[in-house]
């Protein structure tokens, strides 16, 4: 019915720039896949299951790094989840508006502290504390998976708190009022009305925070010890917590990447680390975002 309208310059420019951004990201993915292809061809699935990484012998197995990454992220979440969600519950359910904003400002500032500063604090303070606290387990140094996990946990706190607060605030005030009107205490209202309705948001917050924990490099790099091929005797053993380890990101951020460029297979293995990290984090982020978008089902 309508004749074809010439698209405006604004539209064309906007669309072009958007496509540039989208294709740059796709290009990034493509480069990772292409550059890591040799190691997939030569190692296949054993890339994930091999417990040894000796580039001089052309052995590329990332199982110990996956283990280190998971342990660090798990410790971080274990520390940050109760504290972050607890803070969010306290701020959104018990504090009057002004005090709540004050807490949020403090948390935003905490979120703004650069990771290298956290790393510095970790090196100078946390590492010594952990070394002293772990004396009964006879650690070699304060650089352990536990140290890295605790440090990342502190870094996750603001993320978790902000996202959880959003989730809790999205439960309508009328629901809380109705529960209070029935004679429930503020605690019962929080536990029985607000938290059950906010759970998608809270779960999403956990997943997003988990994604951040996997990808954090600088702070982990400085305190994790960067010890290759640390595979625990038992997956359930807590002993490796008190030992140095290596994570995907600390390996990738280390000086080895400069050596790797000369050897195609080694280089491919390094890029593959990046690809694995990207896929892991993107999956968690995507899942977290989608779950968070589910609005609480309330009138």
């Amino acid at each position, binding site marked *: 019915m309508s004749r074809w309208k010439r698209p405006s310059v604004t539209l064309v420019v906007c669309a072009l*720039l958007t496509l540039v951004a989208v294709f*740059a*990201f796709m290009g990034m993915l493509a480069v990772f896949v292409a550059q890591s292809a040799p190691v997939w061809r030569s190692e296949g699935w054993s890339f994930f299951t091999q417990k040894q990484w000796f580039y001089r012998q052309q052995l590329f197995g990332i199982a110990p790094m996956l283990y280190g990454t998971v342990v660090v992220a798990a410790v971080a979440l274990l520390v940050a989840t109760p504290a972050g969600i607890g803070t969010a519950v306290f701020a959104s359910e018990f504090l009057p508006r002004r005090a709540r904003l004050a807490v*949020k400002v403090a948390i*935003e500032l905490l979120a703004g502290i650069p990771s290298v*500063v956290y790393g510095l604090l970790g090196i100078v303070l946390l590492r010594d504390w952990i070394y002293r606290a772990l004396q009964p387990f006879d650690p070699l140094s304060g650089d352990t998976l536990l140290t890295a996990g605790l440090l990342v946990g502190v870094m996750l706190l603001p993320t978790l708190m902000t996202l959880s607060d959003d989730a809790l605030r999205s439960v309508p005030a009328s629901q809380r009022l109705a529960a209070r009107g029935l004679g429930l205490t503020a*605690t019962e209202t929080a536990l029985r009305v607000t938290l059950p309705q906010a759970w998608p948001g809270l779960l999403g917050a956990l997943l997003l925070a988990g994604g*951040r924990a996997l990808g954090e490099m600088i702070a982990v790099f400085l305190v994790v010890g960067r010890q290759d091929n640390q595979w625990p005797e038992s997956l359930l053993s807590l002993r490796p917590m008190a030992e140095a380890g290596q994570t995907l990101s600390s390996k990738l951020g280390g000086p080895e990447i400069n050596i790797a460029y000369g050897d195609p297979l080694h280089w491919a293995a390094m890029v593959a680390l990046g690809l694995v990290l990207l896929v892991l984090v993107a999956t968690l982020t995507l899942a977290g975002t989608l779950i968070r978008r589910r609005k609480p089902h309330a009138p």
Partner: protein
Amino acid sequence: MRRRLTDIAFRTATGLCACVACGLLVVIVWAICQRGWPALSWRFFTEQIRLVGADGGIFYNVLGTGILVLTALAVSAPLATAIALVQAVYLRGRPLGAMLGLFLQVLNGVPSLLFGLIGMIVFVQALGWGKSWLIGGLVLGFMILPTVCVALVERIAALPSRYVEAAAGLGLRRSQIIRSVILPQTKGGLITGSLLGLARAAGETAPIMFTATVFAGATVPRGVSESPVLSLPYHIFILSQDSFDPAVVTKVWGAALTLLALVCSLSLIALPARLKNHEEANNV
């Protein structure tokens, strides 16, 4: 009675969490200020690094970080504006617009290290630029794209529809409405988002360590290829790894305090607008 005790116990427990969180901020800021303050002096900011960080100042580090951050701003502002307009105006309410939003969220989650890696693969190696401030700016600009974009999209979505309708009622075309109504009304969102993005970019080490920054031996870049800069985060990163010399330790805390002050002041300027947006979005 039991209910009351539970109530008090729960309040206390969550309150303690909040105290721990706020206490952490105090402890961290105090720890940095206490150690970094003695290093701060006029010379610290005006001199260049000497004796591998044990003497001299951080002038070129601050300058380098400034260059990187401003380049990132120049990269991210136009891209973010374009994406925000496409998402919140041209594709408003369409599935493709939602997908674009999702794309931004995923981009936001990508570890900054990987941005550095891709910058290294494409620019440093494939294009043969070597380390350059421009690569750092590009990489950082891309990294903060979601931050800037989301702030702008939120602002556009919050724009009262009567503005747009009034303009449309006057017979303006969509591109004219964008230029005369939407962009002027939402530039606050662009500024807020940019400040937050810059705060993030200024503190990042991972994306620039392979692509743009060196520890020593660079001043003002004179070209693009093989022209790295110094930077505050990388300075701290390197020095903190062998911080046994007391002179170095003082200097590195001074640098950390400077970086912290820079980042916090950037995000504090953006804070009021950001809090207001969040509170309104959840109609408190």
